[in-house]
């Protein structure tokens, strides 16, 4: 058992500040364990979201010493002895209380994604897909919707005004997954450009850095998505073709 001082942000939409909690911690614990002990022993109303405590549900997102992370996957042993530890709510979303933020922005964006639309089944009643083809989408479907990528993305972190026209990295993953789905027949490229705002992303890879599932969001989803959108809209031959068709 060692004693640590944890500085936890307490407050609501009207404001708040960091409050120090002196607490003991034992080997192998993660930040969420210590937050739970603060709840049980010192402050029963400390608000925090969590579910699985295993890095699988993406509920306990926060900013720990300024870095967007999952509390359940941040080991106490990763801090040096005596190092100050601060836990703050995600900054990109409005505060509800303490460490809990209003992430409804993400649920609104999700509603705007045109649904999966499969091609018909084969004559034998199956869908045939090669393992290598499903693996592209499977990487993106590992996403646990912790929204740390949304939190860190400066397009919305620093510019609230971009939110109405920007889906953010989590949903670029979703668009990329659907675009690369071997069975899907919907074409979402115009929406990705015009409503999801993929052009606003300038590939700083901050989202990839914070992804607890280690999904290569920028390289494997966003860049291919940008390329597809460009192919659709800026291919000079296709552009000429559209012009001619429109005239006739």
């Amino acid at each position, binding site marked *: 058992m060692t004693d640590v001082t944890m500085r936890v942000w307490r407050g*609501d939409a009207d404001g708040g500040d960091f409050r120090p909690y002196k607490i003991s911690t*034992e*080997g*192998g*614990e*993660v930040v969420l*364990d210590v937050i739970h002990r603060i*709840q*049980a*022993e010192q*402050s*029963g*109303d*400390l*608000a*925090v*979201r*969590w*579910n*699985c*405590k*295993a*890095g*699988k*549900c*993406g*509920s306990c997102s926060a900013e720990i010493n300024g870095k967007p992370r999952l509390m359940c*996957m941040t*080991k106490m042993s990763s801090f040096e002895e005596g190092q100050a530890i601060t836990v703050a709510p995600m900054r990109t979303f409005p505060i*509800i*209380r*303490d460490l*809990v933020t*209003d*992430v409804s922005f993400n*649920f609104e964006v*999700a509603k705007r*994604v045109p*649904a*999966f639309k*499969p091609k018909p*089944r084969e004559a034998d*009643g*199956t*869908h*045939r*897909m*090669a*393992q290598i083809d*499903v693996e592209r*989408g*499977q990487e993106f*479907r*590992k996403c*646990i*919707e912790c929204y740390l990528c949304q939190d860190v993305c400066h397009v919305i972190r620093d510019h609230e005004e971009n939110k109405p026209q920007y889906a953010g990295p989590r949903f670029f993953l979703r668009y990329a997954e*659907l675009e690369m*789905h071997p*069975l*899907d027949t919907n074409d979402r490229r115009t929406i990705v450009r015009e409503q999801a705002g993929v052009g606003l992303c300038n590939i700083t890879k901050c989202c990839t850095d914070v992804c607890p599932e280690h999904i290569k969001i920028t390289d494997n989803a966003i860049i291919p998505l940008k390329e597809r959108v460009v192919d659709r809209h800026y291919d000079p031959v296709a552009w000429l073709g559209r012009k001619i068709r429109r005239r006739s």
Partner: protein
Amino acid sequence: MATDAQTNMAAEIETHELDVLVIGAGGAGLRAAVEAHGRGVKTGVVCKSLLGKAHTVMAEGGMAAALRNVYPEDNWQVHFRDTMRGGKMLNNWRMAQIHAQEAPDRVNELEDWGALFDRTPDGRILQRDFGGHRYARLAHVGDRTGLELIRTLQQRSVARGVEVYMECTIFQLLTSDGKVSGALGYWRETGRFVLFKAKAIVIATGGSGRCFKITSNSWECTGDGHALALRAGADLMDMEFFQFHPTGMVWPLSVRGLLVTEGVRGDGGTLRNGTGHRFMFDYIPAMFQAETADTEEEADAWYDDHAGNRRTPDLLPRDEVARSINSEVKAGRGSPHGGVFLDIASRRSADYIRRRLPSMYHQFMELAGVDITKDPMEVAPTAHYMMGGIRVDADSTAATVPGLFAAGEAAAGLHGSNRLGGNSLSDLVVFGRRAGVAATEYAEGREGAVAVDGGDVAEACAQALSAFEREEGENPYTLHRELQEAMHSLVGIIRTQSEIDQAIDKIGELKERSGNISVEGNRAYNPGWNLTMDLVSMLTVSEAIARSALARRESRGGHTRDDFPGPDPGFGKINHVVRRADDGTISVTPEPLPEMPAELRALFDE
């Protein structure tokens, strides 16, 4: 009768009127909601967490369905037989039959909705081996199948415009004229009350693992649905049967109980005790002797050739494996931190392990600092799954209160005394869909306005807020810890009469003390208050578990009595039905199993 003041209070509460209300947004709840909504009735789903966070995400290994993609010999009859034998024949045969017959369609349907399962070389859905299943039968996505299931259903719900009320906890069901009429809840964000008037309600609230100290379950799994249904007059059944998953993490302490998928063993991993011995060969029960390998050579050959060899005892049903691990540890042959070793590193290549078990690799690497491609894992049993639950009609999922339906872990019957791995995810979609169908039909056929008694609402609200009015009372976190410790040590994996008696006394004491809880702060997103509300459910469910465990004087499936170590044919013919009297006392009554038709009985004669 409600007073004017009470009627006014009820009128002031935010109210939603629905045809079908689904409580719970895991696999069963979402599948029910998609179905009801698709059939054109006004449907809403309430869930305690955000959409997509339900405990279903934690399911790892896969969903069982006789798709026959890997073994064409498989069919619904074999799946049915495996399920019944896994449940030690206490299952509701009709549910087991429906489940085995309909699971393949439900898996295929998920694919039509966007799920990306792993593939066979010829491009069909791949299936993996799991405990108690004769053939490789589990459709899966690596070791994160639950996430795939929930995301697929979540995205389907969103695409179809199903109304979801997130971070909302239901704490009281309302009835009028003996029928379900609504549900009362509170929003976590504000603590304000909300009333749902509904013609039909589907309970899909999952399990109750938080009653135990070492559990794989999240904070949500507090048995709310069981307690709500019981208080509304519905029967519960089989509450003594609780599954301790054989392989939970044991070290470090903070992750004790975290699930390690059975897929590790399905994909070649084996259990060894502290001396390196493969001890499962020492624990093959008579019931499974004919089909279980008795040498390491045969067990290892089975992975590649199921026809020419018998299956490894590492993949016996979960109750058998959990008890065996428990015995090894008790006999002093455990691993350094009080478990046993689960070794796949010495048996499969690092590449294979990382591809087949990516989230296990990640989980051990990041939380325990163990590289499972190089070193064995340490595992021990963890409270995992409630086989018992709300007693339902097999075909319609109807509970014993009109208008109330239940599906998934919240319902009893399908799994009997022990669930096979992989049968839960298929349960969710098979019976989730059926609950959606039946609730819709009930709602459409229900005549007259749905009435809610203002007095009931006012009383429940006042009761809910009482913890704010007390000062210097009990700490809800302390009471929860004491309950978990009592349940774990006294009504856990091995039980005996004197200890169950002690547990019942302790639950009584905790019930008393819970009436004196005080919470700090206000109603907005207050976990202390939220836990106080959940404790009401956990205490009720714990009592139902303990009283049922006391009544079953035998050992069977997820119920092991030290004082009655063997199965008893008499108890093999009955389910325990739990009822609650108006004064709150909980009773347990034996009722005979429904009789299986001869053509199904014949499947067990071979």
